C-alpha cells in the first residue's frame, strides 16, 4: 500500500479543513446572536428615550453608543478568528462567515443610522474590522456590505411604525420613508452583480410600502386641521398629559 503516506497527509488536510469549517460555523452563530440582541437593544433604548426622533439628539447618540459597545464583542471575536481567515482563507470559508457578518453589518448600520441619520459607508464598516494598525482581519466584500445594509431597511420600518404614536413619530415616518426610498434606489444598480440582492430589494420594497402607508396615515389624519403636524402632535400630547 505504497500510497498511504500521501493519503495520510490528505486526510490530515481534509480533517483540518473540516474542523476549521466547524469552528467558523459556530463562531458565525454566536455573532449572529450578539448582533440580533444588539438590534433589539437599539430599538429598546431609542424608543424609551426622550427625543428619539430628533436628528443627532443626545438620546440617539447614547443609544448608538450602547449598541457599539455590545458590537465590540463581535469585533473581538473577529480579531480572535483572524488566523482562521488569514490570507486566502476568508474566500474559502465565505459561505460559513457571511451569515454572521451580514447580521453584524445590519446591527452596526442601525447604530450608525441612529447617530448620523446616514448610511454607514463600506470603508466605515471595514474600519471596524481592523486591528490597531489599521490592518483588516479579512477583506470585506461588497456583497456582504450590501446584503447586510439592505437588511437595515427592515429594522427602519419597525422603527418608523413603532415610533408612530410618539411625539415627532409622524414626521419621523416621513424621514425614514425618504431614507429607505433612497437606499432602494441606490442599491438597485448593484442587483446584476450581487447574488440575492434582488430578493432583498423586494423585501425593502415591501418595507417601503409599509412606511409610505404610515406616512400617508399621518398626513391624512392631520389634514382636517389647519395646523402643522408638529403643532398637532403637541396639542395631542398636551391634551393627554393634562
Amino acid at each position, binding site marked *: 500500500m505504497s500510497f498511504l503516506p500521501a493519503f495520510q497527509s490528505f486526510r490530515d488536510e481534509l480533517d483540518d479543513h473540516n474542523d476549521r469549517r466547524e469552528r467558523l460555523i459556530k463562531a458565525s452563530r454566536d455573532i449572529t446572536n450578539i448582533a*440580533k*440582541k444588539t438590534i*433589539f437593544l437599539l*430599538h*429598546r433604548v431609542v*424608543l*424609551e428615550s426622550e427625543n428619539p426622533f430628533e436628528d443627532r439628539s443626545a438620546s440617539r447618540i447614547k443609544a448608538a453608543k450602547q449598541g457599539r459597545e455590545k458590537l465590540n464583542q463581535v469585533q473581538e471575536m473577529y480579531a480572535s478568528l483572524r488566523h482562521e481567515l488569514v490570507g486566502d482563507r476568508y474566500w474559502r470559508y465565505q459561505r460559513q462567515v457571511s451569515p454572521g457578518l451580514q447580521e453584524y453589518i445590519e446591527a452596526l448600520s442601525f447604530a450608525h443610522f441612529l447617530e448620523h441619520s446616514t448610511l454607514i459607508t463600506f470603508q466605515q464598516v471595514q474600519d471596524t474590522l481592523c486591528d490597531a494598525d489599521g490592518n483588516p482581519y479579512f477583506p470585506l466584500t461588497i456583497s456582504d456590505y450590501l446584503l447586510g445594509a439592505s437588511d437595515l431597511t427592515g429594522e427602519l420600518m*419597525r422603527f418608523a*411604525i*413603532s415610533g*408612530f*404614536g410618539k411625539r415627532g413619530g409622524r414626521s419621523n415616518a416621513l424621514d425614514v420613508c425618504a431614507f429607505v426610498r433612497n437606499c432602494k434606489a441606490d442599491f438597485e444598480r448593484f442587483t446584476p452583480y450581487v447574488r440575492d440582492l434582488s430578493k432583498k430589494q423586494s423585501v425593502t420594497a415591501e418595507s417601503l410600502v409599509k412606511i409610505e402607508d*404610515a406616512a400617508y*396615515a399621518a398626513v391624512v*389624519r392631520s389634514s*382636517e*386641521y389647519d395646523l402643522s403636524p408638529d403643532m*398637532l402632535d403637541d*396639542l*395631542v400630547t398636551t*391634551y*393627554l398629559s*393634562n
Partner: protein
Amino acid sequence: MDIQDLEKLNDMLDNESDLREKIRDKINDLDKKTRTMVGNLNKIHSTRPESIPALVGAIRPVLASCGETFGGLAELIPPHQFWRWKDMWCHSLRTAVFVAAMIEYLTNRGLLSLQATASTLGIKDEWQDRVALSAEDYLHGLIGLVNELSRLAVNTVTLGNFEEPLRISAFVKDLFAGFSMLNLKNDVLRRRFDSLKYDIKKIEEVVYDVSLRKLVPTGTSEAGQIAPM
C-alpha cells in the same frame, strides 16, 4: 431484529398512539370551551359599557371550567413529558390566555400576570412537568389581547365612548415596553410582535382623532383617574 425488541417497541408505540388519541379528546373539549368564549367576547365590540359586566359574567364560569380539562390532561401526560406533547394544545391554550387576560382588562383595566393567568385557568404548579403555562404561550395570548383591543378602541368610539381608547392606549403602551425588553429570534413570536406595532399605531390614530376633536372632557384624560366603564 430481535423478536422481544420488536414486541417491546410495538407496545411502546401503541401506548403512545393511544395516549395521543386521548389527549386529542381533551383538547377537543378545551376547543369547544374556547370557541364559545371567543364567540361571546366578540360581542364587546357592540356592547355599551354598562352591559359589559353582564357579558363578562356569563363567560367567567366557562373559563373556570377549563381547569377541569387541564386537570384531565395532567392526568394523561406522563411525568416529564410536558414538552413532548404541548404543541398539541398550545393553540387552544393561547386562546384561553387571551380570554382570561381580556376579562381581566375589561374588569380592572389591568394586566393579568402569568401566575394569575395560570391560576385562573386552573393550571396547578405541581403539574409543572406535565401541564404548565410557558412564558411563550402567555406572551402569545397577550398579543392576541392587543389585536383585539385595537379593534375595541375603534368600536368604543362608534358607540360614543371616547375615554376607553385613552385607557387602551396607556395599557397597550406599557405592554409594548415590556415586549421590547425581549430578545426574539426570527420566529412566530417575533412576527406577531411586529404585527403588534400596527395595532398600536391604529390605537394611536384613534387617540389622535378623539383628542383633536376635544371630545375628552378636560381633566379626565389621565387614564388612572377614569372609572372603569
